[in-house]
């Protein structure tokens, strides 16, 4: 499916619960196909391009469990959570009370492993400008790089 397909779908006023199975089957097929294609590539850029199709992170909120206290909205540093003012939420099925948000995952600049959502990386970069040097690198690569720097002799250039 990919991001663009889901993005297009979000513009139509379709009831997603009826299309959930179609989406799931399409999504899983694409994820497996993308992963297999990435295995067969030799060029590093094409590997990245194909592996994007198999990595997306999803945040699912179930309104049924929520007690509408609003603490999550208070705490959220990026101010992205808002509490609904709708109260006529009666539903025949529990699935109708679910809300999902799909985020694209940022890739590590060194090893190419997905580690955080792009929105999160952007928030960190904007709030603290010093972090620009390491915000695109995953924690594993950061520690490896730091260990390498500590092991250097005086006067050596990395």
């Amino acid at each position, binding site marked *: 499916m990919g991001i663009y397909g889901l993005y297009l779908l979000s513009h139509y006023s379709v009831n997603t619960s009826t299309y959930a199975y179609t989406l799931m089957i399409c999504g899983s097929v694409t994820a497996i196909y993308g992963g297999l294609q990435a295995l067969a590539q030799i060029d590093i850029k094409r590997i990245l391009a194909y592996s994007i199709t198999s990595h997306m992170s999803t945040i699912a909120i179930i309104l049924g469990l929520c*007690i509408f206290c609003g603490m999550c909205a208070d705490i959220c540093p990026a101010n992205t959570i808002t509490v609904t003012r*709708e109260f*006529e*939420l*009666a*539903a025949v099925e529990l699935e*109708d009370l679910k809300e999902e948000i799909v985020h694209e995952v940022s890739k590590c600049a060194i090893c190419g492993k997905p580690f955080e959502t792009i929105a999160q990386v952007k928030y960190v970069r904007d709030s603290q400008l010093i972090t620009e040097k390491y915000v695109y690198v995953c924690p594993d690569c950061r520690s490896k790089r730091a260990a390498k720097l500590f092991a250097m002799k005086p006067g050596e250039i990395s």
Partner: protein
Amino acid sequence: MKLNEKIKRVKKSPWVFHLNSGSCNACDIEILDTLTPYFDAERLGVKLVASPRHADIILLTGPITRESLPKIIRALRAVPKPRIVVVIGSCAVGGGVWWDTYSTLGGFPKLQEILKQYEIELDKVVYVPGCPARPEAIIHGLLLPLGYIEQKVSRIVKIASQS
């Protein structure tokens, strides 16, 4: 007789029975508020009755506790068909804050599995979330299974914007 025809019979004047399965009483107070003159559910024919044998709709609150489970099963068995259950409050819908505690079942979906073992069929179930659910939300939830109004919510899948 089909389900819709059966529901049409109770549509004009649904009698409700208030079933508390160990809730904190906030939802119960909201239900009483719904039935008293300020919100006045009686203008829609809604009337509180004392026995589940007289009831058309069951208003269920609370995260079904272990202690209340046998009583809940007995009460639901006594309800004449069509059995309509309106599940009110976050605790009853999905367990709320008690979703994994040892002393509660953790919400209505788990009770439904047990009811299946006892072969108690529920014709319609409506979930009304909220902690506690507002009186307006309860009236909305009461009218939904009777076919007065359409459901407002549906499952949402959003794509987060990257810019």
